[in-house]
């Protein structure tokens, strides 16, 4: 029986789609897991483009939900990576084209055949969000080190807890060590401190993300990419391994002391 993980954020543009693509690809490539990446951003589909699979779409999520095709007909198999599949969103419809009940049913079905179903959630807290979390077992929350993004992340934590999710985990994206060092960007501790949730990983700002998106091949496969390395670490943590935060240069002066705080232990009392 597989696991459904939804990747949320509240605020738009903070890296949900990038994270879904990298985690999905990494789990298939490095952990030999059967993975479906499901784009729940109906009307604004992106995951297909980030994955370079945009030319292969025939059917989509809404077609499956409405019985226009079978599940397997809509799933696109990524030929580069064994065991990796994409369920594309519909582009010409809107969020109301599918219901939470339909999503739940779909996830149940996928769980029978795949190890991981990663759901790329749309921004916001409306119906698209409700659809995306409906069939999920666990939730990840992506934020950037900015007041507005962290505020929205906090809102999502509240909504997820209200929906019965236990311990959603935090992903901090686009951290800039140079800015943290000169005191112009909130650091990891600051964000864990205010949000009081556990950390899954930290991804540095990395131009390789843009380059890899240009090519349609996730940075996680790029050995020289720091963001890719951060995603590879996160994948191992998802699989239950204890992996220390990588040393992104100068993020934490007393880095070694801080390690204990992040792993194995609960981040903060609620």
């Amino acid at each position: 029986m597989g696991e459904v993980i939804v990747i949320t954020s509240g605020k738009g543009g903070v890296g949900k789609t990038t994270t879904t693509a990298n985690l999905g690809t990494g789990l298939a490539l490095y952990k030999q897991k059967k993975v479906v990446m499901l784009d729940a951003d109906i009307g604004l589909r992106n995951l297909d483009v980030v994955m370079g699979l945009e030319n292969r779409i025939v059917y989509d999520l809404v077609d499956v939900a409405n019985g226009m095709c079978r599940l397997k007909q809509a799933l696109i198999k990524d030929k580069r990576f064994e065991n990796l599949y994409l369920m594309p969103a519909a582009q010409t419809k809107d969020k109301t084209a599918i219901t939470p009940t339909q999503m739940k049913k779909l996830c149940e079905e996928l769980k029978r055949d795949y190890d991981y179903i990663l759901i790329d959630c749309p921004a916001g807290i409306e119906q698209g969000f409700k659809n995306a979390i409906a069939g999920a077992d666990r939730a990840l929350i992506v934020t950037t080190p900015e007041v507005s993004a962290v505020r929205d992340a906090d809102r999502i934590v509240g909504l997820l807890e209200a929906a019965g999710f236990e311990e959603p985990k935090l992903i901090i994206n686009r951290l800039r060590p140079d800015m943290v060092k000169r005191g112009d960007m909130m650091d990891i501790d600051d964000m864990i401190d205010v949000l009081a949730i556990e950390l899954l990983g930290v991804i540095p700002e990395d131009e390789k993300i843009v380059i890899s998106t240009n090519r349609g091949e996730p940075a996680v496969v790029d050995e020289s990419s720091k963001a890719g390395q951060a995603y590879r670490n996160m994948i191992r943590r998802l699989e239950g391994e204890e992996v220390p935060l990588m040393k992104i240069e100068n993020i934490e002066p007393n880095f070694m002391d801080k390690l204990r705080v992040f792993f194995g232990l609960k981040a903060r009392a609620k």
Partner: protein
Amino acid sequence: MDFLKIFGREDVSSKDIAKERLRLILVHDRANVSPKFLEMIKSQLIDMISDYMEIDENGLEVKLTRMEKDDDVTVPALVANIPIKKVKHLAKI
């Protein structure tokens, strides 16, 4: 660090300002306190206190903030500033 003092100071790093602003925003978000609710509290305070003192209703300020308890934990706090114009002469209680 006293969080009330860090606003508007040039020598404070922008990330500390960000963190304090964020904390205050989240106090409001999490408490779900609307301006309307604060207005309600305000008018009831005025009603109650007016029996004993004459207060400057325009100067009255009620807000949600954060307060440090002795054990270094900060908690949300409702703070009221009530400027007094005149204490009414009441029979000694």
